[in-house]
């Protein structure tokens, strides 16, 4: 066991981890953040996507120990409680959610994309989503949600996918 200090959703904290513990295990079992989902534990489905220093990673194959000193943002950290980020709102409005189990991963991935590229094309969105599997929606309404946020961002000064905290 080793103690690891990291920042999760704006809060500094320490966790005790084993070398084999994944970041997903620590988030779900120690920190109690259950919004990040476990779908495959092999980095294939993207349900466990979180941001590490702003970049999307599959937390199910990311060693918790490697997160030391880094900023981790989970689905719970994208907006204030009771509030929605633009991409979250677009998912709600446009039918981007069905069963919802993949949704946190999609929203985290798209948040990173829209910060990096506030006006992505459909192809750029498709490529960004190549590590996220949705079994319900057939993707169209998810892609449209991202395009909607991009369109709104390019017509107003508010940055897309802004972090509320």
């Amino acid at each position, binding site marked *: 066991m080793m103690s690891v200090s990291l920042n999760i959703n704006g809060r500094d904290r320490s966790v005790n981890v084993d070398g084999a513990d994944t970041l997903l295990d620590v988030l779900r079992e120690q920190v109690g*953040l*259950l*919004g*990040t*989902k*476990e*779908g*495959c*534990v*092999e980095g*294939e*489905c993207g*349900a466990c996507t979180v941001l590490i220093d702003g970049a999307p990673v599959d937390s199910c194959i990311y060693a918790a120990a490697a997160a030391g000193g880094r900023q981790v943002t*989970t*689905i*719970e950290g*994208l*907006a204030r409680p009771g509030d*929605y980020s633009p991409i*979250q709102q677009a*998912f*709600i*409005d*446009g*039918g981007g*959610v*069905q*069963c*919802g*189990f*993949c*949704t*946190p991963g999609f*929203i985290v991935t798209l948040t990173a994309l829209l910060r990096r590229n506030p006006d992505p094309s459909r*192809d750029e*969105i*498709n*490529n960004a*989503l*190549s590590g*996220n*599997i*949705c*079994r*319900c*929606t*057939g*993707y*169209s*309404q*998810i*892609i449209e949600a991202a395009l909607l946020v991009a369109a709104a961002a390019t017509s107003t000064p508010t940055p897309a996918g802004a972090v509320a905290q």
Partner: protein
Amino acid sequence: MTMVGDSIARSDAGAKVQGGAMYGVDHREVGMLHGAILRSPVAAGRIVSLDTSAAEALAGVYLVCSAADQPETMAGWVLKDQRLFATGNVRFEGEPIALVVAEDRATALAGVAAIALVIDELPGVDLETACSSEARVIHPDWQSYVPAGGEAADYPRRGNVAAEMRAEPAGVDEAFARAAQVIEDRFTTNRQYQAYLEPKAAVATYADGRYTIHTSVQHPYNVRERVAQLLGVRVSAVRVVGKTIGGGFGGKLDASVEPIAAFAAKLTGRPVKIRNTRTEDILTCPSRENAIVTMRTALDADGVMIARDVTVEMDNGAFSAEMPWLASLPLHILGAIYELAGPTRVISRLWYTNTAPTGAFRGVGGTYLYMALEQHTDHIANTLLVDRLQFRRAHLIHDGSASLSGQVLGDAGILAEGYDELERVAPWQQVLADLKPWQGVGIASGVWMTNPMPGQATVKMNEDGTVHVITGATENGSGALTMGVTQIVAHELGVNAANVYVTMPDTDVSGYDAGSQGSRTTHIVGRAALDAAIEVKRQLFDVAANLLEADPADLTIVDGRVSVVGSPAVSIDIADVANAALWTVGAVAATSSYTSPAIPFDAGCGSGVLFTTMSTPTYHVHMAVVEIDPVTGRVKIVRYVVIQEVGRAINPVGVRGQIQGAVTQGIGLALYESLRIGADCRYLERSLEAYRLPLALDIPEVEIVLMEHPDTNGPFGAKGVAEPAVVFAPAAIINAVSHALGRSITALPVTPEEVLSIIEEIEGEA
């Protein structure tokens, strides 16, 4: 005011986008232990020894149990051929043999690894072997098995034949004897895994002689019954509490880890959680069955179809779940689209094999049956040198056509209307003229149904004027409850949809419901909830009439206020009415149930016809344009059009999501997804990395045209919507690929490797 026909946001979307929705796998209880299952590593064999002493000796292990501990009861959805743990023999890879319960999951897994298991392995029986009729009988005791419905509900089965349906009208052989030519095809399809993103999980507790199970399943009442059967208790001793479902698509209709978790909770006196790894989930999920379809059509000298002969061999897997019932499906599909000038014989057989039990996956066998029928239809049209679209239109069923079970399809003319709609959005000659090299176009069409099984809903009005709908129905993600039923009740009661709350299922609290299957929830539960809402409204009007000194018949509800028609100033808030009711007639609430009416059919149509008719039929026409990359073999969907009869679209955004998602699963079955069974009867694909699912970049924007012929029984006319689009997509895509390559396609899926081998074959011939 949010009403039927509006695209309101689903009521559970907020929690889902914030990570706040709690799924079955997220549920935990204080003092919870963790279970892990030792599963059979081989497909078939005899258990020689099972030594659990090393596991029991591990620190932190609370319980190890196996067949030696289990109740002497048999269980099953249609046929009772199952036990809790493998008993004497193992019959498929993944079958539970023993359970280890420990204080944490890692210890439980270590306990499983410490068990010494010796199995005398036997050669596995797969579908081809089973069909050969010389195979080892997988269940030597098959005659002792009793149907879940009792001895009287038994049906044709023998040895490895788990069910058989035969419809053999007179004159088939005679017609083939005088045929000028016979068109014959043999099709195969591999299994398709539901691949919901949330692997199965359950948490069980035991107290006061009763089991409580928190789990995310599509059919809580079915799971309750299976747990009770397997544990040898009455159904009321089991309470199933639903959690948010992370996808199901048919794979979560029956019990999986729930009965074992419940058994362990009683033995340990502690809450016990069991969750599948993804590999365990793939190995044990009731996937869409693999099958072999042979189809022969006799043509006379004028090219008239004078008879058809179809045989369907379906893989049941090692135990019977829902499949004996689904073995009747070919009868309905094969007669309900094109009319022949002669009889059709259909024989379908369901075979026990040493593979995981199969089951329902959205669209069930309709996917490959329509693929076979439509590819065969192209084969006939091409042989006769008739345009494929013209051939179809010339033979379409029409209003009053009868299915092969004798069901009269009074509105089958909608099918021709669907073709008219297709011509409007995609003029056939234009589509053909626009095709580029390596492109092809395919058409598929037909009838699908809305599951008729019963459901109940209670509608109660709270003292603040909001509404609760209490139901055992499940929101599997489709929006049937969080959009459909919510909007139906809001519309009828004149309240905002945001003020309607649909509860999670709880078999102790909510009335019976037959689960989210076969597109039934909006239609069946929506109707039950509508009827209950109508009664709630009557109660409100009775009370309000006194308060407003008006005739109940003159009252209406608008924006949450009861008012007198024509005098909107004379009104009262429904919250005040609901409060007043407490002190007079009592709390405002009503319960209603609904099941689709029985449909007349011809009882002499065949033997072993367990499901007899297609309830609330809907009609569909699909068109796919594909382009083949001759270098990689990749098939790109260039254009996809769905013409779909829905009765009434309660929520157009929701309907679109169902169709887009269903087509995507159909694309998966047609082009990528294949759960292959190896020579040792074990799956070759065992992870999401190996099992190729459709990704965003594979999927086109589906063009959708809705036809709305309101159903007289459906709530506001709604019929089933969610399932049909997956049924026709493989057929349309395979016909398009076949057209592009100029070759019959006889196996699902047609992967890039398959496409390349067909291209090589063509080049070899040239």
